[in-house]
């Protein structure tokens, strides 16, 4: 019951996050959406951890938080550099990777 609600919340957050990543043009907003995705996964892990009575999920959640922090650090640094070079952080204007 409680688990289901947690999982539902996680699913909702995940979907919001995906929407943000796909639809947003601002790079900072994309990064924030990625954060949402990660945290929805955390929520899932914790929910199952509580249900199974083991601490493995908690451990993984802690790892994910740490990695997310690092990822945001790198991501923001990249955004900052892009802004300095281009005076914009709109993602649809960055199409140098076109093959």
């Amino acid at each position, binding site marked *: 019951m409680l688990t289901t609600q947690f999982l539902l919340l996680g699913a909702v957050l995940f979907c919001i996050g995906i929407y943000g990543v796909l*639809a947003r043009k601002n790079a900072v907003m994309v990064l924030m959406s990625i954060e949402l995705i990660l945290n929805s996964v955390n929520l899932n892990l914790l929910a199952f951890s509580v249900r199974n009575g083991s601490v493995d999920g908690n451990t993984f959640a802690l790892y994910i938080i740490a990695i997310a922090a690092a990822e945001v650090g790198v991501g923001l640094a990249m955004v900052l550099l892009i802004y300095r070079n281009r005076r914009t952080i709109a*993602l649809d204007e960055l*199409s140098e990777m076109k093959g």
Partner: protein
Amino acid sequence: MFAAEAAAEVHASTGWFLEHAWLIPIIPAVAFALIIFFGKRMPMKGSEFGVASMFASLVLAVGAAWQWIQRVDGASSVAHSAVEEGAYHSAPFVGPIIREWTWWQSGGVEFGIGQHIDGLALTLLVVVAFISSLVQVYSLEYLRGDRRYTHFFAALTLFSAGMLGMVLAPNMVQLILGWEIMGLCSFLLIGHWWEEEANSRAALKAFFTVRVGDVGLLVGTGILFFSANSWTQENLGVSGFNISGLSAWAMSGAASQSALTWGAVALFVACIGKSGQFPLHTWLPDAMAGPTPVSSLLHSSTMVVAGVFLVGRLYPVFWEGMKIGDTNINFIVLIGGITIVIAALLAFVQHDIKKVLAYSTVSQLGYMMLGLGAGAWIAAIFHIFTHAFFKACLFLAAGSVSHSGSHHSFDMKKDMGGLAKKMPITATTWIISTLALAGVFPLAGFFSKDEIIDNVGHNGYNAFMIVGLSGAFLTAAYMTRATYLTFFGESRGAAAGEHHDQDGAHAVHDDHGAHAVHDDHGAHAAHDDHGAKGPHESPKLITVPLMILAALAVVAGLANATPFGSNWERFKKYVEPSSEYVMVESASASGPGESIVVPAAEEGAKKEGCATVAPDEGMVCYFPTVSHAKFKWSKAALSLVIVALGLVSSWLFCIQYYTRRDRRLVGLTERNTVLRGGYKVLWNKYYLDALYETVIVRAVAYPISRAAYWLNQNVLDGIVNTVGKVARRVAGWVYRNIDQRVVDGAVNGSGAAARGSGGVLRPVQSGKVNQYGALLFAAAAIGALILVIINT
């Protein structure tokens, strides 16, 4: 059937020092490591480790010797009654203290390491530790300020450790180990001042000449191991490397005579190299290029006596292999006899004081070999003992002269003379040692040398007794010449206070052509004040070792003073191994609480002793029965008269020649053809160096290199060229067929495939991040769907 049954058991005492004698070489070896790693940081630059370790070894060695004496005394007092009953023809058997641990194994053969302590080992241990200690103390002053002071002490300490380890070796493997350590260290020490080319050449020469002999050591050890191993394993349960096992095997009568002979000859070749016997003695005088303390150590107690020690250690092998018991000329006697005379003659034409001593050492080693070869075992070992003291003293005195008297020169004719007044202590110790070396009663050399000569004659080698006597005459004469030139007459060169100019000093004394007359380059600047003050007595660190050694040169002979009756023959009692038959079980037992089985008398049985009759089943022998000459004053008087003649005639000649410049004598070698020829031969050292360096090296090395060149050009290059041609043909075929068609086809095909698929996938790479994200999530969603479907 046992020839004798156990009638009494003798409890042979042992003790801590005897059981732990293996520590004696370990201490300096550890000190060597300490000097190498920490020496430079110590207040005395590492020399304190060396000196302390040598004194510690000396204490242990003396303690062990003391307990050995008690062991022998205990055994002989209990066995005394048995002796009176006539069961013995010699002293009762007192077993050596053997402890052995497995060092490493290879192919089922165990190589042990440990100790074999008996009278012989202890004699050498005490002498080596004692001389090493004094030499190290002496070096503190002599090498002060040297640029490689720390390394010198490291090598010196390891050198002593090598000798000590060799002396107490229970098997041939450890003996070779110690032997080679000494070879290495002698190289390092002789070439201590390697900046001068002559010094490094001398070091190389010493190393290579000794190595020529060392081949014999390996070959001999191999021969003995393969022929003795099965016998020793079966009878004594030890390997064929074991020294007491080899001794028992040689005496057992089961040994093959040809294996014994060739093994002994090969081992003796090693002794010729190491102990500077003719014809491999040439490295020894050149070894004078090293610092004087090294010469002293090398020539008195370590290194050169290693060869003599090896013969003494494996004496049963040499006894049986060379047929020493017969009175025919054998290899050892011959080499020893030749060495005595040729080296003594060479000593007459040397200008360098250390070279006189070097040839004197060679000659004295000849005496030791002569004694061993003629069956005078105890006399030869005793001569090692006494010779160590007076020869070390002579070398150190020569060093003292150069250090303080002649401004680092060793040239007697140019820079010495008249130093007796200025250096009274050095001169007194030198003269005492000279008289001891010449064999003047009652100094040390008299007892040992006379005993050798006496026993050589007694054992039937009459011709060699005459060789020994003439050697005694020559020894007295050349030592008198050196003494006169150094300490008496008028002062010359540096001894007169003349000051060498700094840079010219090296070149001035180069009249020997090949080798440095100079000793002290590293410390040249540090000792500049000596030159200004002129000759003076050396400091205490030098004179005290000299005085101790000179005192021993006086009294050491009393340790085996045959003229004073059998109570004085302590060496014979404590050092000479017993030639008794021993039961195997009692012989192999060792350690504390060991008992010696004293065989009871049986009428007439086995009175002959070992080496005359082979031992019975279950019995072994460890030493041949050697006979001892009875001392007679009439015989000794002859040699004393000869020595006195040598001393007096040489003295008179020196006064006439060097001081009064007698017209009849001066320039005689230029006027008289015969004498000129003789002088030239001696001056060129019998042309042996020329023989080795030009004839042999050219004859052997040049054809080899030419043959190698021919082989290289024709055979090897031919092979290489053929291989090259074949390879080129094969490569051409491979290129046309495999490379062009198969490999290139595959490469081109994969390229085309990649281009095609790239064109298909190209539109996906839009460059839009959001689109990438959509693809990523779509793929994840499809993956999740598949997962769900599979799992349900």
